Structures are given as C-alpha cells and as structure tokens.
C-alpha cells in the first residue's frame, strides 16, 4: 500500500514516559522505601491513588482507585501525600534533557512527552534508521536515569505519535520499543480498540455492538459505517488511527489554557466563612503560578462539590486579565457568596477549587498605583503558601483541557486526624479556623530538625510527629518521634531557584522498616 502524503517514513517520533513517576520520586528521596510498595495520593478516607509503585501494583493497586480500596488490598504500603514541588523539579530536569535533544518537545504532563527526532541535532543521530534511533533512545534513557538521581523512563519510537505512545507502554517499566516503519498495523491489529485514544467506555460499547473488539475489527469497518456508529468527526479519526495513520506533528510548548487549584476535605465544610478562606488561599497559589509563568487570566471559576457529590462551577469574566491573588480571591469569594444564595452549601462541601482561564500575557495597570504605593498590590501579597496539609495541589491544565498532570487530578486530602492548631512558624495566624484542617505534618512531607537534619514525616497524629531522617543521598535513616509543636522541627521547602538535587544515587540497600503513616 502506498504511503499517504505527509506520512513519516522513519520511526522519528519518540514518546517518553517516566515509570510510576510520583512513587519513584518518593522512593528516590526516601531510601527506606526502595523496593517497597509506595502509594501516593490522598491518605485519608476520601483520597484517591495518584500513583502506585510497581511493588504496590502487584497487589492490584491502580491509579484513581480509592485509597480505601488500596488500603484493603495493600495495607502494608507506605501511603504518602504528594510532594508536588519535588515532582515538578524532577519533571523539569527531564524536559530540559529532552529539549537539548530536539526543539520539538511536547510535554503531555509532568511525566510524559513527545520528542520529534526529525528536528534533532545530535551527533548520535546521523540518520533516523531504526537501529540508530534505538541506540539513541537507550542513551537518552540512561541520561534521564543519571540526571534525575535514579528515575527510569520507558520509551517508544514509531512513525506517529499514536504508535509511539502505544510502544512506550509495551515494555514498561524501564522499557524501550521501536516499531519499525511499515510494521505499525501488524502491531496494532490484535490490540483491543481501547488502545486508540478517544475510544473510551462509551465508544467501545458502541463498537462492541457493531462487532468490533480489536483494531483489526475496526479496520474492517468502512468509513460510512464507522461514521454512522460514532459520528462524523470521531469516525474519520478512528478510521485513520485504525490504519495507524496519524500525521499529527509534535508541537513544542503547548499553550496553557488555565491554571487551577483544588482541595478535597476529610470533613465536610459547612462554614461559608471557612470556605471563603480556603478559596482565598487557593487563589493565592493560583496567582503565584500565573505570575511565575508570566501569565494573567480574565475568567475566574470556582468549583464546589457538595456533600451529595453534586459538583457546581461558577465563573465570572473580568473586564481585563489579572494576575494578583487578591483580585482572584475577591472574585472567587463573590462567586461563592452568590452560589450560597442558590445552592445549599449548609449541607457541607467536600471539595473546593479555584481556576483562572482566558489566559493572556498582560495585565491592566491601575491608575491609582500612580497616586500612592498600593499596599494591596500583588507584590505586597503575603507569600501565598498553600500548606501541603490543606490537601491542595496547584495544577496547570493545558491546551486540550487535560490536566498537565492527570495523575495529580485526584488531589490529596486533609488528614483523618487533624492536628490541633499548629503553633509552628508556618501556620497562618490570620486564618485560625483553617488550622483545624491544616495538618502541618502530612505523611511524606519533607522536614528539617535543627539537631537531626533533614528527613520526612513518617506519620503524625495526636500531637506527635514521627520522622525518618534520610534523604536521597543518605542510606536509610533512623526514625524519631517529636511533639507536633516541637520548635526545632520545621517543614522543609526546596527553594524555587535551587538547582536539581545531588544526582548521586544513594548507597546501601533499603533497610527493613515499618509502614510509614502508621495505619
């Protein structure tokens, strides 16, 4: 069959996927957890698994499973709240490596990207023959492993994005698969139709009724028949993909469409004042992310999930884009007030979120800023720290509306045993009621003790924090317990400007240890 115009003749599209990304970063930084089941996600009753390490997957734990079910299947795993700063940092290292290879790098999320090797300028790539790209991909995987301090990546190479992505999954984890040009259909035909992006449960069910289970079955369906089953646009796409025809280019730097933050809460929140406080805090985090990305936005949306699981969104579009937390917070609170008049928030709220969309690269300056230095100005904001204990993650959603990090979507939630108002320096004295929900010592969080050095929270509750003193560059370390208000114990934050952590892999085998989180 002659190749259609524009179709690539070499396996020049590379798809790289970091293996069990969040869990792997945790195992890297917590030597005592290496080789053990680790589950990152919400650690309390309503939490959802974001990532499970391969050791945990053996027990049937999967992403997006409820933490409750995960605990039933794998009670001895370490259950950790996410450390998104650490994940972003590791992701940044990998994306930089890829960009050194080719200017055409299309990140899909924190742990996944396409690279167009046809645009690469690397002495190791004199041509794009199958064996050349295979050898190059192996070098790239080694570079990732070294630069990230031990993370592994699975890589797929093919003539299209679709097949490259399918290929990277074939030998996961730590795998490499090149699909030689011309063999794509051979590879796809026996696979279930759900391997095709866009074939979700609904489409799969419709196709099943038409007798289609595999890609080969789908290939046997004419375009007309396919269109009558799933609609015109979708049908045309499936018709092409079933024949491994995918000429979509690798597009560098996908445009960010919105920036948002949300948190779910262990206890339903009934106090509208507290909801407003939480939204304001999220707004601060969102605005900080906007500013660090050089973005502003005009539409502000709040998301509220009621106790009965109904989710309500309310949004307002401003006359001009903004990037300051005070304005985002003010609009979010006004939307909440408005919502409170029509929806029954008194029954409790389990999730709150703030998002900014309608992104732009400018802000409307304020006439009054010329009159006097404005104490409410964005620069004078109190640092909008989103305490990890509030169970909020700030995520950037991209172009196609998918979260930049899909696994980050089920956000961590607050702890089952909220510590009484923390007195540590990180607590916000202005926000007393928030403290009840703000577990200052979430499981897995990085801490530093004046005497014992750096470590991570192994478990907390009833006014006691247990810390394991170890880092990526130490052998497994000892466990010690402190009072939650021990003045020598501080949350440890990586400074945003900090260079990647020491990349040397920690020495020594993982020492046996109890299950963190103590449940």
């Amino acid at each position, binding site marked *: 069959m002659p190749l259609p115009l524009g179709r690539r003749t070499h396996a020049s599209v590379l798809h790289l996927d970091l293996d069990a990304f969040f869990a792997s970063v945790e195992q890297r930084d917590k030597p005592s957890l290496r080789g053990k089941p680790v589950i990152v996600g919400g650690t309390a009753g309503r939490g959802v698994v974001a990532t499970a390490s391969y050791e945990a997957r053996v027990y049937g734990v999967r992403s997006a499973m409820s933490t409750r079910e995960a605990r039933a299947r794998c009670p001895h795993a370490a259950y950790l709240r996410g450390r998104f700063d650490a994940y972003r940092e590791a992701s940044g290292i990998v994306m930089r490596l890829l960009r050194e290879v080719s200017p055409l790098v299309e990140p899909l999320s924190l742990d996944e990207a396409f690279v167009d090797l046809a645009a690469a300028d690397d002495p190791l790539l004199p041509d794009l023959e199958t064996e050349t790209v295979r050898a190059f991909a192996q070098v790239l995987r080694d570079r990732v492993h070294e630069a990230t301090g031990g993370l592994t990546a699975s890589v797929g190479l093919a003539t299209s994005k679709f097949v490259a992505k399918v290929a990277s999954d074939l030998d996961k984890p730590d795998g490499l698969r090149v699909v030689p040009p011309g063999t794509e259909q051979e590879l796809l035909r026996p696979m279930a139709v759900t391997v095709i992006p866009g074939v979700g449960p609904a489409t799969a069910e419709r196709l099943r009724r038409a007798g289609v289970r595999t890609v080969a079955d789908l290939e046997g369906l004419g375009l007309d028949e396919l269109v009558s089953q799933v609609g015109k646009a979708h049908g045309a796409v499936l018709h092409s993909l079933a024949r491994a025809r995918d000429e979509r280019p690798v597009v560098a*730097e996908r*445009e960010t469409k919105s920036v948002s933050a949300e948190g779910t809460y262990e206890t339903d929140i009934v106090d509208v004042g507290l909801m407003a406080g939480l939204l304001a805090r999220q707004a601060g985090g969102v605005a900080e992310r906007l*500013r660090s990305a*050089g*973005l*502003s936005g*005009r539409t502000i949306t709040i998301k509220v999930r009621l106790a009965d699981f109904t989710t309500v969104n309310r949004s307002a579009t401003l*006359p*001009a*884009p903004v*990037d300051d937390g005070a304005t985002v917070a*003010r609009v979010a609170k*006004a939307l909440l007030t408005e919502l409170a008049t029509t929806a029954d928030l008194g029954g409790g709220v389990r999730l709150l979120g703030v998002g900014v969309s*309608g*992104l*732009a*690269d*400018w*802000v*409307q*300056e*304020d*006439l*009054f800023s*010329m*009159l006097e230095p404005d104490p409410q100005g964005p620069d004078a904001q109190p640092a909008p720290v989103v305490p990890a204990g509030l169970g909020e993650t700030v995520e950037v959603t991209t172009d196609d509306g998918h979260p930049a990090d899909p696994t980050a979507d089920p956000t961590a939630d607050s702890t089952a045993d909220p510590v009484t108002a923390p007195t540590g320096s990180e607590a916000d004295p202005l926000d007393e009621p928030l403290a009840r929900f703000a577990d200052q010592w979430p499981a897995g969080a990085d801490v530093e003790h004046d005497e014992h050095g750096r470590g991570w929270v192994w478990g907390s509750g009833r006014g006691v924090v247990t810390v394991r003193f170890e880092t990526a560059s130490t052998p497994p370390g000892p466990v010690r317990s402190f009072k939650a208000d021990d003045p020598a114990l501080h949350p440890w934050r990586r400074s945003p400007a900090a260079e990647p952590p020491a990349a040397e892999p920690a020495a020594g085998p993982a020492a046996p240890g109890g299950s963190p989180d103590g449940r």
Partner: protein
Amino acid sequence: MKFRVERDVLADAVAWAARSLPVRPSVPVLAGLLIQAGDEGLVLSTFDYETSARATLAAEVTDDGTVLVSGRLLADITRSLPNKPVEMTLEGSRVSLVCGSARFTLQTLPVEDYPTLPQMPTATGTARSDAFAHAVAQAVTAAGRDDMLPVLTGVRIEIDGSTISLLATDRFRLSQGELEWSPNTPDESLAALIPAKVLADTAKSLTAGSDVTIALAASGQGDGIIGFEGAANGGTRRTTTRLLDGEFPKVRSLFPNEHLTIAKIEKAALIESVKRVSLVAERNTAVQLAFSDGVLTLDAGSGDEAQASESIEADIDGGDIVTGFNPQFLLDGLGAIDQSTVQLAFTQASKPVVMSGVVPEGDDDPGFRYLLMPRRLLS
C-alpha cells in the same frame, strides 16, 4: 378609589415608575407600585429603600384613595392594553382594571406596610435635560461595576457655580466631563457621589421635558439623598436616590501635566481598526498602538495565537511611542467622545493616555477627557 385615565399616559408613567422596582424585594410590599388618586390626579410611586420613583399624571378621579398593587404585573398589563381609556376601581381587597372589553382583577398589597418615600431635597438648580443625559452617559463609561468597590460604582458630581463636573473611574480609566447649568444660588459649591447605574437610567428617562431639576442637600443635610425631576407625558417624574458613602479618590491629579507625544486621528477609522485587530485571541488580547512617521500601527495577538495588524493615518506631534491598551476600554473611551477627530496625548508608554475630542476652530470645548491606563506586558 376610582379613576379614569388615558391609556398612553398611564402606561408611560407605570413603565417609568416600575423601572425602580427591586428585582428581589427584601420585603414583599416593595414589589408593589403605590397608586394615590386625589384632586391633582394620580401619583404612582415605587421604592426599594435606595431609590424612589414618583410619577404624577392627570386623571379623572371619581373617588380618592390609595392602593398598592404588583408593579411588575401592572406594567405588563398597561403596556399591552388597547388604546382606549382605562378605568381602575378598588373593589374590596381587589382592584379592577377595565380597558375597552379587556378586564383585569388585581390583588392589593397592604398599603399600611408600605414605607414612606423620602422627601425630595430643596431644588439646587436646573440643567437642560438632553445636555444632562449626554454628560451623564459620557461619565458612566468609566464607572466601576464591581460591587466590592462601592465607591467606584458612583459618579462624583462637583458643583461649582454654573459648572457641574462629573467624574467616574473603575481604577483603570477615568472620565471627566463638564456641564453648564443654572444653579438657584450663583456661588453654589457642592459635591456628591451618585450610584452610576441609577444616575444613567434616571438622566436618560428624564429627557421628555426640556429641563431637569437637580435637588441636592448641602453636605450633612437631607440624609444623603439627591433628587431629580423632569416633565413627562401628562405629568412629572421625580427620582430620589441615596448617595454613596465613602471618599472618592482624588483623581484630578492623575492627569499628566505635560504631553510628549500628541496624535490626532479620525475617530471612526480608529474605532473600526481597533475592533478589527482585537478580534484575534478570543478577546483576551491587548491591542498595541505604535505611533511613528504619521502612521499609527495597531497590533494584537502574540506568539502562537492568531495575530492582526493594521495601519492608519495619524497626525503625530512629538516622539515615536509604542504602548498598548485593553481594546474594550479604548473603544469605550472613543465611543464617549463626540468629535469626529480624537486626540491621544501621551507622556510615556507606561503612563496613562489622555483622550479627548479635537474641537473645531471657534467651537467651545465641551471639556470631556478620558484617561486610560495602558496594559503592562508580563514576562
């Protein structure tokens, strides 16, 4: 209560008074429209504790009396009546309304629960109704709509003898207009902050007669209300509204003292051009203005987004300058200017532009100025 009235006169007065009905009345009687029938004809009133409306109209009153009926319903009914005399009669707790062969029965609301309307302060002076409406319409262009910043949802009027200045700002742009009027006391000096929306609606609705009377109590008197009265079809219209509290910012000092670049441009061409280039990027884009060599180049959109560019002729005096604005704010200002040629006066790219009309030789400068803060590019 029993009266007979011309359909058009009644419909006009009811529609006017019903404008002030609260959308979500805090107490049910506020949804009512009060009808008082007496020797002078009819008085129709609405009130929401902030704004009151009072219309008088001529009618043949057979029996005096006062009733309170649903204002919204009465407005809907009178608007759709045939053009025949209307007769309204109180029958027990109901009001019957008969017009030709159409017949309605309305429930009444308890008159005794209805609040007393505020007194109109003593008249301060009069202005030509069309000039007043025009000056108000120009001023409200820049008024804020954000209820969280209540002071900026008002128009500040400053009365200094025979001149009224009107100022409004939403922090991003500022309008300043002037209006000549006839004060009752020649050296009158007063200032007030009036809710912009009420002021705009009121001024627009009082243009049937030639003049409008403005009644503003001196500071500290009259419970902080302002009244407006004008003539209308078959009677008078009177509105009072509560003034806004709070101090309006000292905005006059925001106007720059000097201008380094002054550009004169044909207004219609500029409006068309701004509208065209700002079509790109889902209306989130700013429009960049570059003035150089007798040409104004407009650009919008950036990077991977759609982009647009257009050049128009400009009479430029001073150095080249490149700046940018929220296109809607720019269009609002251009739309508020009467003259066919506009002048944009700049100091620096990061400082506000002063927009005004170029007044033909020999004409008086109406004095309208629109000050607009530019955009700041991020990163």
